[in-house]
């Protein structure tokens, strides 16, 4: 049962902006074309060659008990600031949270048809990440492990990725104005490179987070659904959404009820992002910023690409 037939009900932000982009005229469109040309080859180089090595995490929300051990482990591993409320304080569930500069991942609580469902949120590590496609200077790349890697040394703070991401993941660290940086889950790239699983999936006590090869996880997910068809919705969220992602979900309740967008296409958002990008200047009337971006990107991107054969071999964060 796919839950994306209700498009008529709501026009997504992306579609709205896309149509704005089309209406916005050719000037804007040429900007978008310039920004997106040639980047796929770079950002996807390592990834495309080694698809069978791609890792993933299967999130089975029917198993999650909301203990937030995953959040705690992520915080500790990534040496993030101490949270305002402790990890065993259930009052954090009073309102839904988003990942932010202090937390790469959060667990939210949803009451759906009398069931209490907890869902962990983090970057999905899309196979065809819209954040990477939208980035004018290739601050993002895909590693062969499946990590959507963000390189803060390249980032110049335009924040296009924040608006392009279909899951609203990249957050912005406003506190360091001089060194702007985007904050998002790293997929524990530093651990993956050492052959370890992510800190969150290691900490999860219930098996709600299963780490493994993405292809294995799809099989496991399908088996669980087939074994208990009455319990699960017959859909693996993230298997195909916007081209598929490393993080995938299975659930007993409709995915849009637990905060996952229900109307995403199976195709990558790359083309749509182009339309979207071209709409940004019109919406925000930031023409100077766009032209600076084009100028900056065209001159510096190629230079960066040449200099940094592979930034992904550096650190994980």
């Amino acid at each position, binding site marked *: 049962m796919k839950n994306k037939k209700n498009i008529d009900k709501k026009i997504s932000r992306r579609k709205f902006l896309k149509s704005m982009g089309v209406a916005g005229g050719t000037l804007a469109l040429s900007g978008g074309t310039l920004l997106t040309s040639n980047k796929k080859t770079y950002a996807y180089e390592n990834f495309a060659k080694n698809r069978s090595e791609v*890792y993933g995490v*299967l999130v089975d929300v029917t*198993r999650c*008990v*909301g*203990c*937030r*051990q995953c959040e705690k482990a992520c915080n500790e591993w990534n040496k993030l600031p101490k949270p305002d409320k402790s990890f*065993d304080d*259930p009052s954090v569930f009073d309102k839904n949270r988003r990942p932010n500069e202090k937390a790469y991942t959060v667990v939210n609580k949803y009451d759906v048809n009398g069931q*209490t469902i907890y869902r962990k949120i983090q970057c999905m590590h899309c196979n065809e990440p819209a954040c990477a496609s939208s980035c004018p200077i290739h601050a993002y790349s895909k590693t062969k492990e499946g990590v959507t890697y963000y390189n803060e040394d390249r980032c110049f703070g335009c924040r296009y990725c924040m608006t392009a991401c279909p899951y609203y993941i990249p957050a912005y660290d406003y506190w360091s104005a001089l060194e702007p940086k985007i904050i998002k889950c790293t997929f524990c790239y530093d651990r993956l490179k050492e*052959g370890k*699983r992510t800190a969150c999936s*290691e900490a*999860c*006590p*219930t*098996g709600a987070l*299963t*780490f*493994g*090869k993405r292809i*294995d*996880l799809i099989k*496991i997910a399908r088996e669980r659904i087939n074994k208990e068809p009455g319990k699960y919705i017959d859909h693996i969220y993230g298997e195909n959404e916007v081209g598929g992602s490393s993080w995938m979900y299975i659930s007993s309740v409709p995915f849009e009820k637990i905060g996952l967008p229900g109307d995403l296409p199976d195709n990558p958002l790359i083309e749509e992002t182009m339309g979207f990008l071209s709409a940004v200047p019109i919406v925000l009337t930031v023409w100077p910023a766009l032209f600076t971006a084009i100028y900056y990107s065209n001159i510096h991107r190629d230079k960066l690409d040449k200099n940094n054969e592979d930034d992904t071999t550096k650190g994980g964060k």
Partner: protein
Amino acid sequence: MKNLIKLFIVVFFILININIAESKTAPDKIILNSVEKDFPAVSFNHKNHEAMAGDCAVCHHMHPTNNELTKCHSCHNLSNTVFKESIVNTFLPCKSCHSTYNIGSPLIPDLKVAYHQKCFTCHKNMGNIGKDPKGCLEICHIPNKEKDEEVSKNEE
């Protein structure tokens, strides 16, 4: 040839069953302390749970009794030692296989996940577990609980 295999399997199962009968009796209480660093150890009353479950197979891997023959190696091929041990001893401590997580075998959960999956067969939505995370400390990981000195330290 097929009959020979069948005969072999029958003999094999008979031997296994003899083994069950001869195996040492189950412990009354077990201290489960593998996550003691973060959570108080659980004093697990094996005897009570045995009575409630009524069948060891509710928690333990056992040979199927419904004539459904699974391939031996689907469970016993973990390593030579484990194979040998699992033939000689009918019930192994969970941790002998569910110890370190192997990324290549995501179907075999680590120890804490193996335990919790079994516990949650019944304990989810019991007390506060799965509704409000407080339940973990109220029902099983009871803080500062006086540990019964008599109980067996063997984790089953």
